[in-house]
């Protein structure tokens, strides 16, 4: 089932290849190019911007459909951030809102046929996750000074256990960017590979003539059900990424267990 030279094997990895659309030259030995990944990131930002600009262009007291959607998305993220990080956390609202909308639209755009899924590459999700963690660490030290390290010393731990517990807490903090990035990446990767594999079952069954096409109804319905599941997963992963960001920012604002 791996990438053999035969054309009748399943190749679900090809959908993730990065293709250069046009070259942007070489800076300091590193090649720059505008790729399909970059194109879909631009499309994502354009979709989010268009949605919000159109939604708030006619600020009616009784909102129309698009304005209602824009207000719902604002309220959703604002409530999520306020509940996790308190009123002080609202200073991060533009960051969390941008993050949530970018991940959500990037995930959903990947579900359209022939569109590239930006978040299915570990480099993209790792860049987002490390941005969040560096913000948490940076703001934590800026606001609390050395007191930020109270995060790693839970309340009521006996003195002799303290070094061990502190080491474990530091390790679990360091595992946050990894789990944050791999969760989103693995969900998108696995979802799209599964979709590709089930879709290929339809074609492979169709090779058996008329009876095959009737049998191919089953993987067809499975593919439809899987696409619905993938829409749910797209929303869910964006929500989980955003809410974990809010929780980590709460740790930076109030570092005490």
């Amino acid at each position, binding site marked *: 089932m*791996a990438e053999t030279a035969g054309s009748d094997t399943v190749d679900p*990895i090809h959908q993730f290849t990065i293709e250069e659309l046009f070259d942007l030259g070489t800076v300091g030995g590193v090649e720059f190019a505008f790729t399909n990944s970059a194109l879909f990131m631009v499309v994502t930002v354009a979709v989010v911007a268009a949605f919000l600009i159109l939604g708030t262009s006619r600020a009616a007291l009784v909102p129309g459909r698009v304005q209602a959607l824009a207000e719902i998305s604002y309220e959703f993220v604002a409530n999520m951030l306020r509940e996790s990080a308190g009123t002080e956390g609202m200073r991060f609202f533009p960051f969390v809102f941008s993050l949530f909308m970018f991940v959500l639209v990037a995930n959903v755009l990947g579900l359209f046929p022939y569109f590239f899924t930006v978040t299915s590459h570990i480099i993209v999700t790792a860049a987002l996750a490390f941005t969040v963690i560096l913000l948490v660490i940076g703001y934590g030290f800026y606001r609390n000074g050395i007191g930020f390290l109270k995060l790693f010393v839970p309340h009521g731990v006996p003195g002799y256990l303290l070094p061990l517990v502190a080491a474990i807490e530091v390790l679990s903090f360091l595992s946050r960017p990894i789990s944050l990035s*791999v*969760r989103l990446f*693995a*969900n998108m990767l*696995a979802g799209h*590979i599964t979709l590709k594999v089930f879709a290929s079952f339809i074609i492979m069954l169709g090779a058996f003539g008329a009876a095959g096409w009737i049998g191919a109804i089953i993987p067809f319905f499975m593919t439809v059900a899987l696409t619905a599941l993938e829409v749910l997963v797209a929303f*869910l992963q964006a929500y*989980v990424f955003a809410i974990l960001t809010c929780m980590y920012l709460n740790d930076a604002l109030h570092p005490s267990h």
Partner: protein
Amino acid sequence: MEQAIIDAGKYIGAGMACLGMGGAGVGLGSLFGNYLAGAIRNPAAADGQFGRLIFGFAVTEALGIFSLLIALLLIFAV
């Protein structure tokens, strides 16, 4: 011959990696079972906790997806 051994190792490893998803299944069943047990006792409070349920689902599911990721990496990317 060597390539055949490598391929066999890859596929056996991928199969073993899939066992990790059993743990995720147990965790999710426990999570939703406790939510339903609580919701049947106190239906009015159930909707308020739905957001936490979905969050717990996502972080538990993530561990199962991590093991699926190892299996997929072994099959397609090693």
